[in-house]
């Protein structure tokens, strides 16, 4: 039984790794790599958000705010002040963690719609600050961000690299880097969920009263998961800034926050691999629907509505349930 749990956790991770390795076979041009890198970074953000929303049952409609703060922290630290990328990313993560903790303590006392409103406001405030502090952030025009750099070695989308004698382009290198980051993000999330801390988080969702009478300090755990998910967003924001090479306050926008939440709901709240699928679908959808660009928002709304009505558990959990049922029926038929 214990082995079963561990195996299922590792199996998912291995399948994800294989998919990430095989995927480039279908990539025809650099744009595909670029898109896949973006998807990986956003998927990792959503995996973090899912810890808060799917597992601990709290909502954040302002998570792009933390993503944006991480992106701008990196942009300003590396661009304006010439910091190295890794210290900038880590300092940004710590700063965002502290901001999330300070903000989270009071607002996580709220529940449901009130918590939605409060987190929404936090996201708006961050976006407004990024828009208005022209001297530091460049305002609505945005700012350029230097390439990711580690120990004097630069990872640029426009560079050329050699890996084990293979000549690879900058976007290909970024794709590999983002894939590894996504795998690590998923591994951390899976480890967290299958642990005493993870059970405490899920119990906050399942029954706060039950959690408190067995000794779970629910307020502390809500803050903890809020901070963790904000740090996920911040780190991914930092990487996103480096990858894009240019950021605008749009990274912290309301639309982006809603996109994150939609990915969680569509993919499957409380399913780590589900929300990755959600991120893939919603990031690729605008490409598929390029001809109906003006209907994009309508399509998003429609998808969210249909998901809530027909697949309230989300894409992946519903699909696995269908497959499982069918397989069982088949097994029953042959027996």
């Amino acid at each position, binding site marked *: *039984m*214990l082995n079963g749990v561990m195996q299922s956790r590792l199996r998912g991770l291995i399948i994800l790794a294989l998919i990430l390795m095989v995927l480039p076979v279908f990539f025809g041009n650099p744009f595909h790599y670029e898109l896949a890198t973006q998807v990986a970074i956003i998927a990792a953000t959503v995996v973090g958000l899912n810890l808060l929303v799917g597992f601990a*049952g709290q909502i954040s409609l302002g998570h792009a705010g933390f993503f944006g703060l991480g992106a701008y922290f990196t942009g300003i630290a590396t661009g304006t002040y010439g910091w190295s990328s890794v210290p900038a990313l880590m300092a940004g993560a710590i700063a965002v963690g502290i901001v999330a903790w300070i903000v989270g303590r009071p607002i996580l006392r709220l529940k449901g719609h009130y918590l939605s409103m409060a987190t929404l406001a936090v996201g708006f405030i961050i976006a407004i600050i990024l828009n208005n502090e022209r001297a530091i952030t460049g305002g609505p025009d945005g700012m350029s961000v230097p390439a990711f750099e580690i120990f004097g070695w630069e990872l640029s989308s426009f560079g050329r690299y050699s890996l084990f004698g293979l000549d690879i382009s900058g976007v290909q290198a970024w794709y590999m880097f983002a894939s590894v980051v996504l795998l690590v993000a998923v591994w*951390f999330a899976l*480890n*967290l969920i*299958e*642990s*005493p*801390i*993870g*059970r*405490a988080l*899920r*119990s906050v*969702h*399942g*029954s706060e*009263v*039950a*959690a*408190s*009478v*067995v*000794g*779970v*300090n*629910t307020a502390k755990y809500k803050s*903890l998961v809020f901070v963790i998910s904000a740090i996920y967003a911040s780190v991914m924001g930092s990487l996103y800034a480096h990858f894009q090479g240019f950021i605008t306050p749009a990274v912290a926008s309301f639309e982006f926050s809603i996109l994150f939440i939609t990915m969680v709901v569509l993919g499957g709240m*409380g399913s780590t691999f589900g929300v990755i699928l959600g991120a893939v679908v919603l990031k690729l959808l605008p490409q598929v629907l390029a001809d109906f660009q003006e209907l994009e928002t309508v399509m998003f709304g429609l998808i969210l509505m249909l998901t809530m009505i027909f697949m309230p558990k989300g894409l992946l959990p519903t699909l696995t349930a269908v497959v499982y049922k069918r397989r069982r029926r088949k097994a029953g038929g042959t027996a």
Partner: protein
Amino acid sequence: MTALIEVKELDKAFGGVHAVEGVSFAVNAGQVYSVIGPNGAGKTTLFNLITGLYTPSKGEILLNGESTVRLAPNQLAERGMCRTFQQMQICMNMTAIENVMLGRHLQLKSSLFTTLFRLPSLRRNETVARNRAAELMEYVGCGDYLAAEAPAMSYGGLKRLEIARALAAEPKVILLDEPAAGLNATETAALEELIRKIAEQGITVMLVEHDMKLVMGISDRLLVLNYGRVLAEGTPEEIRQNPDVIAAYLGG
């Protein structure tokens, strides 16, 4: 011998309604202490006050001589108090065994670093916790559900699962709020056996229950509430013969 739980002149008002009024009693360690009374007598309110879910309007609650009036439920759990609920509180987003493992929360302290990297110490502790939880599930009689998701369990199974979760916290005192409600005669007999076993381990049991046969059979002492006030207090024998109790409750 000092009392494990001592309640003095406890008062809880909701608006103008006094759900609990001037209630005093003491529970000694190792006792099975039951609270009975008609519906709306304030039994569950009393439990919620003792376990820190409500703050008293007036009065004092002492656990091992320490006032608990300002403590949150999780702080009371740290001091060895655990409970079950009349309206069951099971985490339906978890498996049955995980619900029991949740009860070991206080015994399973691990740092965030240990958790994120799933270091061997965490894995070892988790295995121990899982085995202990499985033992407890067998102990309370839901061993058939070791691999089940919580929502797949029967009503009676969930009631026992809640007791297993409370026991997993290794409490000094356990409060059971109507554990027999909704159970059939066989299940109630099994429950009586279980409560006896728990008490024999030296765990103090406080019980709110309507099933008189069960209560009279296993209680060392009883508290009878009516309209939030104490009607009588004593051994089952004394309570059975108390004319006020007979008039207000047992005699109908």
